[in-house]
């Protein structure tokens, strides 16, 4: 009997051990993967520890029209040689999946509202919010539109097939590490997933609006103060398209919209808005300004810094094209790059293409609303959200003439969203990139851009034949003057957008007299441009310093351009200190703390990584700003109210130093800018002295703490704190979380030469030496010469991997 008991006991323990180690471990804060399969060297994470050796692989892909050879260089950049464009797209899909499959999946899920499916009920609210903002809806519409154009659609299909070819080769042991850690499986790629990914770029780049804040501010302060605090035009602005450019527009100026405060007060949003400090620089200088006589084009798009990186470098050569640059895993083609004849780059336009409308419900169940004097029924869209370890959630979303009624727990009550990304995208949207990849001159570039919709981008261009150009490109709504700054009345069609600016009337310039074109997210034009457009907060400093420096430069070399991309000088710091330092110079505190005062007065306004002055300035300025606008901060405790822009604050210091906004209403004394400057200077000194107690040396990088986070927030896969300078309003716009996600410099000579670097690496696998191998170079401002080759043989000595697709 005893031996039976012993056996059964041992059996139960063994089975319990296996079952226990095969189940995800739930803790209060997170779910850990099954430990047994994760640790097993046959199936688990050890399988993702990549071997470092040269290899030569043969891969069979059914239905290729010819052989495709891919050689990977010493940074694992693939150089694809194919007989047809379709074969190239298919192999690009395979390659993207091979190095970035998990990134593609998680980015798509985050945008499309499909996170609960893998992470469980905690993510339902976030998924719901994404669905209600209409991402799934917009992606469905995009796919339908793409289907109308068989030629472009074939490219996307080939790309999708390549991704699925790769997924089909995977058994669980081969899954990318994050799939194992999050305990789910890759599912086949679809064209809709590509559409969702493209919409994620729209969410990042053209979803920012301040309609709620502006409406509340207008109501709170009244029209007069509103106009005083939030003027739309900064007189010191240096626009993208030079003043004096012929607009080629024949319209009568749109009528003025009066400022009428709304009855409603708008509450906080359920989720944060896209980061305001996402921006970018691009420019091209003509041969007249360069040492070699060749045009040079530069681009550095600033995005959230993540590992894996958003960009993936690639060269694609077919009989139709030879194009090199960065691509987005999930999208076919090269997005920012160059070929033998031209180079192109992008920055964000930032016009307001996201408007909110108040809905007047006409029945209690809120299924009908007032539109042009008639009760109009909403249309319903059913969103099904799958939930790991639970039943699917069905969410019914109301759609109005304007768009979805977003109202989620804690935000957007009674409002509908009108957003450009919901519009029919144009059937040949991706033709933009295919066209740019193949373009030979200005006309090809212009033609390619006509297919582009959103997010609107400033497309900079340079060609070997000497042309340079820039276009504020995308579908830009025509609005009445002032329209769309505030939440609008949704009961009348009159408040709709008035159409779209024709593509040949968007702001643009070719070969301007000044010898360069540039953009840095500032105003597209000066106020003379006939169409109205707005955004609360065009960039005010990078554009100015860029144009200032480019105008002053001559005999430009590639090295000069590298230095400019890494330039950390701030006009804002210069302007502020010129005004504020004299106000504190004679104070007792400034005399006593002469090291701090002198550091500021000797500072060259460069956010260099090893300096302390940037810390003093930043603490001082942010304290000064808060004390000046204490009224706005107080209002924000109740509901969101717009904060005045920095430039407006600086103008106030300069022009009206005794304005009542500088006075703290609750104190007996009457404060002017002088008192506020001194008070905030003293607060800064206190803060700095307490910092000094903890640290021997104060350094800007150590204070700023720039870090490249992991896309899945796994901190072990993120970077360390980087020893890097920079600041959002300097050209090298590195904040703690954002920065240049790709730096590219292309010289268009007889043979095109190019340099680039991005803060990451080609492989998305944390177990690869190519996961973050470029981070140090990026941090130090170094570049790699890009290996733009005609044949695989040119790479002979640098090859890390060869793949032959048959």
């Amino acid at each position: 009997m005893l031996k039976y008991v012993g056996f059964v006991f041992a059996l139960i323990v063994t089975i319990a051990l296996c079952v226990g180690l095969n189940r995800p471990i739930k803790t209060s804060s997170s779910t850990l993967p099954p430990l047994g399969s994760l640790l097993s060297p046959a199936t688990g994470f050890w399988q993702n520890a990549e071997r470092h050796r040269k290899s030569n692989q043969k891969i069979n892909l059914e239905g290729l029209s010819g052989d495709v050879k891919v050689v990977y260089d010493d940074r694992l950049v693939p150089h694809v040689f194919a007989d047809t464009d379709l074969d190239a797209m298919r192999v690009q899909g395979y390659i993207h999946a091979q190095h970035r499959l998990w990134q593609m999946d998680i980015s798509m899920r985050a945008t499309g509202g499909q996170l609960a499916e893998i992470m469980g009920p905690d993510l339902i609210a976030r998924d719901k919010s994404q669905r209600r903002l209409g991402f799934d809806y917009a992606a469905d519409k995009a796919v339908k539109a793409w289907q109308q154009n068989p030629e472009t659609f074939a490219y996307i299909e080939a790309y999708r097939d390549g991704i699925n070819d790769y997924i089909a080769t995977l058994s669980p042991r081969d899954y990318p590490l994050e799939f194992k850690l999050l305990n789910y499986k890759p599912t086949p790629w679809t064209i809709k997933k590509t559409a969702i990914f493209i919409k994620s770029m729209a969410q990042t780049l053209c979803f920012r609006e301040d309609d709620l804040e502006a409406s509340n501010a207008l109501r709170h302060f009244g029209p007069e103060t509103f106009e005083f605090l939030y003027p739309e035009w900064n007189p010191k602005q240096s626009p993208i398209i030079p003043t004096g450019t012929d607009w080629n527009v024949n319209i009568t100026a749109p009528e003025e919209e009066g400022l009428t405060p709304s009855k409603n007060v708008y509450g906080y949003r359920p989720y944060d808005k896209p980061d305001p400090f996402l921006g970018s620089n691009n420019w091209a200088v003509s041969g007249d300004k360069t040492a070699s006589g060749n045009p040079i084009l530069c681009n550095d798009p600033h995005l959230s810094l993540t590992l894996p990186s958003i960009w993936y470098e690639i060269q694609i050569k077919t009989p139709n094209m030879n194009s090199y640059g960065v691509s987005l895993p999930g999208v076919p083609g090269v997005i920012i790059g160059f070929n033998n004849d031209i180079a192109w780059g992008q920055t964000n336009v930032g016009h307001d293409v996201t408007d909110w409308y108040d809905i007047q419900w006409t029945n209690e169940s809120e299924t009908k609303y007032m539109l042009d004097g008639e009760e109009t029924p909403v249309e319903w869209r059913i969103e099904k959200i799958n939930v790991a370890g639970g039943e699917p959630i069905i969410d019914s979303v109301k759609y109005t003439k304007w768009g979805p009624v977003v109202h989620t727990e804690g935000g957007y009550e009674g409002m509908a969203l009108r957003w450009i990304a919901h519009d029919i995208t144009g059937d040949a949207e991706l033709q933009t990139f295919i066209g740019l990849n193949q373009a030979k001159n200005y006309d090809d570039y212009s033609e390619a851009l006509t297919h582009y919709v959103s997010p609107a981008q400033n497309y900079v261009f340079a060609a070997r034949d000497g042309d340079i150009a820039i276009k504020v490109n995308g579908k830009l709504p025509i609005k009445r003057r002032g329209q769309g700054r505030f939440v609008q009345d949704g009961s009348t069609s009159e408040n709709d957008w008035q159409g779209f600016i024709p593509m040949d009337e968007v702001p643009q310039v070719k070969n301007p007299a000044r010898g360069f074109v540039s953009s840095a997210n500032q105003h597209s034009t000066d106020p003379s441009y006939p169409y109205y457009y707005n955004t609360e907060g065009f960039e005010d400093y990078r554009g100015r310093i860029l144009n200032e420096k480019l105008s002053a430069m001559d005999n430009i070399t590639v090295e000069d351009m590298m230095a400019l991309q890494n330039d950390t000088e701030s006009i804002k710091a210069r302007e502020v200190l010129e005004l504020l330092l004299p106000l504190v110079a004679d104070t007792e505190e400034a005399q006593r703390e002469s090291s701090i005062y002198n550091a500021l007065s000797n500072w060259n306004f460069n956010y260099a990584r090893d300096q302390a002055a940037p810390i003093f300035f930043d603490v001082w300025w942010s304290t000064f700003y808060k004390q000046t606008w204490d009224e706005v901060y107080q209002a924000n405790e109740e509901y969101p109210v717009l904060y005045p822009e920095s430039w407006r604050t600086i103008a106030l210091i300069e022009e009206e130093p005794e304005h009542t906004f500088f006075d703290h209403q609750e104190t007996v004394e009457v404060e002017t800018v002088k008192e506020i400057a001194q008070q905030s200077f003293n607060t800064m000194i206190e803060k700095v002295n307490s910092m000094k107690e903890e640290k021997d040396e104060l350094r800007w990088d150590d204070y700023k703490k720039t870090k490249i986070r992991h896309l899945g927030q796994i901190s072990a896969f993120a970077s360390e704190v980087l020893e890097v300078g920079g600041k959002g309003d300097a050209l090298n716009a590195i904040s703690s979380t954002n920065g240049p996600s790709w730096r590219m410099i292309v010289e268009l000579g007889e043979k095109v030469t190019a340099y680039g670097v991005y803060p990451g690496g080609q492989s998305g696998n944390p177990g690869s030496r190519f996961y973050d191998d470029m981070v140090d170079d990026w941090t130090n401002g170094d570049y790699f010469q890009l290996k733009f080759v005609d044949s695989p043989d040119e790479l002979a000595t640098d090859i890390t991997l060869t793949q032959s697709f048959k």
Partner: protein
Amino acid sequence: MRIFSGLILTIALAYALGAIMPWWSVAIAGFVMGAWIDRAHWKVFLIGASAIALLWGISAAAHNAMNDGILADRMGALFGGLGAVSLIAVTAAVGGVVGGMGALTGSLGRNLIR
């Protein structure tokens, strides 16, 4: 000699099953060996445990060496700051316990039909 054959048998079987079955097949490998070998239960447990610990430990160490320790550093951080050696030891220990229990069950099962 039997002990050595038991060790080799378990490792070979676990390795083969690992290619086609989930990770817990190491318990089956231990069980088969345990049912076959005629030794004291505690010795059989130790043979099974050592076999799988060796298999998992050595293959983890090999993966780690060919990877220059890149992944182990990151995974170690994820597991609360373990170094590569500790991570390999944890791997070996978890595999060892499962393999050993499989072997013990096999050994006790053999006892039933004697």
